[in-house]
């Protein structure tokens, strides 16, 4: 049941939502002192909120129906929740269209492609777009960028940040007549400040970092996207025991999914490609094997089609298979400049 329907004061409600508690089930199992600490209110107030919450829960017979399984959420509640969080735009309209608006929070999206297709570019673009303020249709959040290959270049992030601010000012100028009200106070340095950059040099460090991310994010609740670039690198180098690798990878995937769900953030994993012998010929496929391909919620493959870069939705529970062109410019990821821009449905 959503927090929005609780009979509590508006300030208490906004505190709950700001702290990340959007449904009853998310805080009903906590102790009042824990809730009080998170919301920065007194213990008594927190106890009062929880009492009201459990009372409404009992009253709301229809939601309580099938002897509510503790911790479960109804599909209806989930639908409302999804609408509360806007998607993270990729700055390319065609790409956003096939993604249903952009990268979704609470889901793990895997993006893979050949070297040089623009995976790191997309990663940096997303780390910057998550910071677009709520007034401009964004999430106003921070980003965590986990770099396993050393391909993150600060100068490039600065370039893309400057272009993003330019676009926002143009947009703001068009939409609002009163330019004073929407003074865009963002400076590229502010954007860089909101990207938490981690560099890991081995698979053990990678796993350790992901294990500790939940502590980090509970201290920094406004992180709304975690980007791992790339999740493959350390697992391809010198693994003797393939079974161990599969175990480690699935453990890591589960942790990332839990992270996405618990903190309502988007997780984007960038993957590499490998060749596989299927049906008598070699084909390109994303790395890390078949068991890994089940781990992500959504899968996007970036590829070359003639002279253009395309993205293809390979796997998604809610999006249909489609491909769309995009281009990498000095301003970041943008719409492709070709004349016949068509989204091809498969």
């Amino acid at each position, binding site marked *: 049941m959503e927090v929005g329907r609780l009979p509590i004061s508006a300030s208490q409600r906004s505190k709950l939502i700001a702290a990340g508690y959007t449904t009853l089930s998310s805080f009903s199992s906590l102790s009042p002192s824990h809730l009080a600490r998170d919301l920065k209110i007194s213990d008594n107030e927190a106890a009062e909120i929880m009492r009201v919450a459990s009372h409404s829960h009992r009253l709301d017979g229809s939601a309580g129906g099938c002897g509510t399984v503790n911790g479960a959420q109804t599909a209806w509640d989930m639908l409302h929740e999804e609408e509360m969080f806007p998607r993270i735009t990729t700055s390319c309209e065609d790409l956003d269209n096939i993604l249903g608006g952009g990268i979704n929070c609470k889901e793990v999206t895997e993006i893979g492609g*050949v*070297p*040089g297709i623009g995976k*790191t*570019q997309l990663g940096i673009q997303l780390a910057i777009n998550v910071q677009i303020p709520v007034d401009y249709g964004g999430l106003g959040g921070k980003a965590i*960028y986990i770099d396993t*290959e*050393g*391909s*993150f*270049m*600060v*100068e*490039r*992030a*600065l*370039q893309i940040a400057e272009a993003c601010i330019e676009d926002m000012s143009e947009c703001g100028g068009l939409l609002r007549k009163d330019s004073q009200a929407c003074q865009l106070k963002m400076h590229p*340095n502010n954007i*860089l*400040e*909101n*990207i*938490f*950059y*981690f*560099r*890991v*040099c*081995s698979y053990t*460090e990678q796993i350790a*970092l992901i294990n*500790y991310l939940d*502590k*980090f994010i509970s*201290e920094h609740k406004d992180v709304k996207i975690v980007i791992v670039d*790339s999740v*493959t*690198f350390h697992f*391809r*180098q*010198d693994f003797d025991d393939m079974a161990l690798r599969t175990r480690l990878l699935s453990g890591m995937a589960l942790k990332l999914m839990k992270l996405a769900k618990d903190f309502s953030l988007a997780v984007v994993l960038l993957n*590499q*490609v*490998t*060749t596989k012998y*299927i049906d008598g*010929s*070699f*084909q*390109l*496929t994303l790395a890390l094997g078949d068991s890994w391909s089940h781990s992500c919620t959504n899968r996007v*493959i970036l*590829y*070359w089609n*003639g*002279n*253009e870069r395309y993205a*293809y939705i390979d796997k998604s529970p809610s999006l249909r*298979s489609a491909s769309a062109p995009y281009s990498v410019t000095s301003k970041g990821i943008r719409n492709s400049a070709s004349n016949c821009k068509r989204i091809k449905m*498969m």
Partner: protein
Amino acid sequence: MANKQISQMGLPKSIANVFAARNVFTAKALSLMELRVQNEHLAGHLPTHMKGLDEALCGGIPFGVLTELVGPAGIGKTQFCLKLSLLASLPANYGGLDGHVIYIDVESKFSSRRLIEIGVKSFPEIFHRKEMAQEMAGRIHVLRPASLSEFTESLQQIKVSLLQNQVKLLVIDSMAALVTGEFEHGAPRQKTLGWHVSFIKSLAEFSRIPVVVTNQVRSQSRDETCHYFFQVQSWNETIEDRTRHDSHLVAALGINWAHAVTIRLVLEAKSGQRFIKVAKSPIAPPLAFPFNITSSGILLLSDDGIELTGPDINTIHCQGHNDIINFGGESLQ
């Protein structure tokens, strides 16, 4: 160094200690900017003195990452490496790094005579004095490993000299020759290559020096495709591809290696003219610059590169190459 960054982040003590213990390097992107771009020597890049290329790469060969030079035989990869070694050993006021260079010469291509020639022609004011020439040349250490295991051993030694902060550039010419000779194509080779790649990358990052590696080319076999399962290929296309494959060159060492390098510079010859292309880079657009090899190294014929769209930037041509070697004699085509 990890401790310094973590303390700047304002993390609670418990987490900071854990991260420090695990040696996880963390920082905010802004402090990265301050650390690297604003404070590092030459903003973290080694200028190549080829204006167009330096502009495209935002200053030159970047520190801390792997840059790959790939191209057919005789195109100029070793010349490029010689020029870079010279540039790294020059004093700071001439645009150099004022440091030592480790040159790993696998195929015995290093020519000290050619190095001095490049030096004399490009920086006459330094090299005309014999002691200066001796000092510059004395900063370049050439290693000639005879096998992969010797190379691995010397890597460990290199790590020590890097810690002492004297070495400012590492050149490996060529990586392909080291690995190809030792193993059969397949799993053992990939594993060893993988280990070396990781080690060299961590060396580069840890000591923040540029690392340049050369790679060879091989012809693309008929079995190879570069398509995904969802890309439908028409029958006509496959016939066309087959005739192309015979003269089609690709970089050696496989796709895993292609992912691991951060910057890939492709040198090729097309219709008798040599080009240097920025095929993979996090910051540069796909540009191709025509160049010639002169007595002072590599000279770009035009500083405005030709922008190539599409996957063509990755293809390696070897057309008209023989014409160049024939010193402009009658064209055979």
